[in-house]
């Protein structure tokens, strides 16, 4: 087990990257604490897999260093790093039995057969495949194969880190929950550093202590699920986390007031003059529909999703979402909206601006 440090790391798939756009992974400094569970969240093609492959040594970064504890492993081959990695699509050794598949990483490291048998049995129980151990891996269903891949990833106890690259994509929903619980338990029991790549926010938020959100090759925020929810550092985080995502509305900000088309919204903090694209961000949870207070909106649709209602509305030409409690009345004459000032964030060029307390 080790602390993993990324030092000025950047990667481009082009041999001679010229501009920043050529980089699949933009410059990154980060320390993955020993024993923590991280989720790496972001939309497809944002560089998640690139980052993972650099950590496991399948890819050599174009720039920067990577350290395990304090040892530079930037150019060390995968085998020396002692990392377990599970890929998005199942990789099984077709000609081997399930048992031999699970035993493969241990046998390659020359562990004695008694230990191997013990470990394989344990892992098989964990992934629910005890009765299939003697079957050939070929011809199994995709999710059974993926469970074997997961099992192969978990079978070693002495790994520096466990990396998961969207491992549950092909697993059916019931088993997904089950396996995620197993992974959490594994983390709890052995305290491996785990990095879990996903584009599913529920998966990320339930699995991890800390969530790393990536956007266009850049890490835009690292934080606890709460922080991501309350104070998204980048409009992408606001939009990506939450269901529905944060409302982002162009505005003009002066001091403690934001102006939207000339109408004013009160802010909890004061802001100096801002350059570029200025927007305010409000989560639907912190917007409230009302009869008399606030700014005018035009309600287009109300969706009852069970625990709450989602109100789709038009606000000065922008689509916004408002969440109302299950029992909150929504009537035709409610055509105004108020925002909870404490939870209104201000963004300049997509990055959050920290205001000054008044």
């Amino acid at each position, binding site marked *: 087990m080790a602390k993993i440090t990324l030092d000025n790391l950047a990667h481009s798939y082009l041999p001679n990257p010229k501009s920043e756009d050529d980089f699949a992974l933009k410059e990154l400094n980060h320390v993955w604490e020993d024993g923590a569970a991280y989720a790496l969240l972001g939309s497809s093609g944002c560089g998640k897999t690139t980052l993972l492959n650099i950590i496991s040594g399948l890819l050599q970064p174009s720039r920067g260093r990577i350290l395990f504890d304090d040892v530079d492993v930037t150019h060390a081959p*995968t*085998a020396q790093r002692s*990392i377990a990695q599970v890929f998005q699509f199942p990789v099984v*050794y*077709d000609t*081997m039995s399930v048992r031999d598949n699970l035993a*493969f990483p241990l046998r*390659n490291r020359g562990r004695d057969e008694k230990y191997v048998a013990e470990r394989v049995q344990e892992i098989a129980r964990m992934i629910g495949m005890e009765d299939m151990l003697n079957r050939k891996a070929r*011809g199994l269903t995709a999710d059974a194969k993926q469970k074997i891949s997961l099992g192969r990833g978990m079978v070693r106890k002495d790994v520096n880190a466990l990396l998961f690259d969207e491992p549950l994509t092909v697993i059916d929903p019931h088993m997904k929950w089950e396996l995620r619980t197993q992974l959490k338990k594994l983390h709890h029991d052995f305290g491996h550093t785990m990095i879990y790549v996903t584009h599913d926010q529920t998966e990320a938020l339930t699995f991890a202590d800390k969530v790393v959100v990536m956007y266009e090759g850049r890490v835009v925020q690292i934080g606890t699920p709460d922080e991501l929810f309350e104070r998204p550092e980048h409009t992408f985080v606001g939009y990506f986390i939450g269901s529905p995502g944060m409302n982002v509305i162009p505005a003009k900000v002066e001091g403690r007031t934001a102006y939207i088309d000339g109408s004013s919204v009160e802010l909890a903090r004061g802001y100096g003059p801002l350059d570029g694209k200025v927007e305010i961000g409000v989560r639907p949870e912190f917007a409230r529909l009302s009869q008399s207070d606030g700014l005018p909106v035009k309600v287009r649709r109300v969706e009852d999703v069970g625990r709450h209602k989602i109100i789709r509305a038009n606000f000065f030409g922008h689509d916004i979402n408002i969440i109302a409690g299950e029992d909150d009345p929504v009537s035709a004459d409610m055509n105004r909206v108020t925002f909870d000032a404490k939870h209104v964030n201000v963004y300049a060029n997509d990055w959050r601006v920290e205001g000054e307390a008044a």
Partner: protein
Amino acid sequence: MDKTVNHKAWFLVLPVLILVAFSAVIPLMTVVNYSVQDTFGQNEFFWAGLEWFEEMLASDRMWDALGRQLMFSGIILLIEVPLGIFVALNMPKSGFWASFCLVVMSLPLLIPWNVVGTIWQIFGRVDIGLLGYTLDLIGVDYNYTQDTFAAWVTIIVMDVWHWTSLVALLAYAGLKSIPDAYYQAAKIDQASRWKVFRFIELPKMMGVLMIAVLLRFMDSFMIYTEPFVVTGGGPGNATTLLSIDLVKMALGQFDLGPAAAFSIMYFLVILLISWVFYTVMTNLDKKGM
């Protein structure tokens, strides 16, 4: 589900039947016809029953040729398949050199059989051939027209030169279809190079390799032109393979009856071995080997 029964539908199969009849069945039947009759010329034929078959089965000549044939096919398969895989493993996977290798590898496949034969016939000659002359110069006793071993080496090396590319290209296609994730997983699992080959590359190549083996077996079992041009079946009968012997019998000696019986048995042997190959292949496939 109820099926409509209309026996007139059989007429729809007729065109295919006619085509197959003219392209395969009727020519084959003339051979069958010859194999059960005897003639003394003047287009007069007498019923001979299974006599020719019995005669051929009792003759050492056919068994010897079959033995040589099996040895030839066996040896070239044992060389070409591993060599083809080895070449494919070492070919570049992309870029200019990948295309370059593919073109170079395809060249021998594009040369007509008799030209290949001629090339090697001249190449191996001790008086004017580069190979034969050089070997003679450095003191190797090499003369494929007189020495059985030299003749065998020549026709085997020639076949390997001509056809290993085919195995290599098929194996290469199999290798290229393996997703990167397999190699990455193997690295994570710390699999050795041998294990990567044994548990990833070989199983994934199995399908195309079986096709390669089948093609190379059938082709080599029927080989005629190349060894005929190089050695003419000699020295003595040392390189007289089945088809060379058959042609000698049918056209050289004009023994139509025995040659026809020979042909039919030859055909049946190929059919049988190919069927065995095919069955083994599909069974392995089902068992997940």
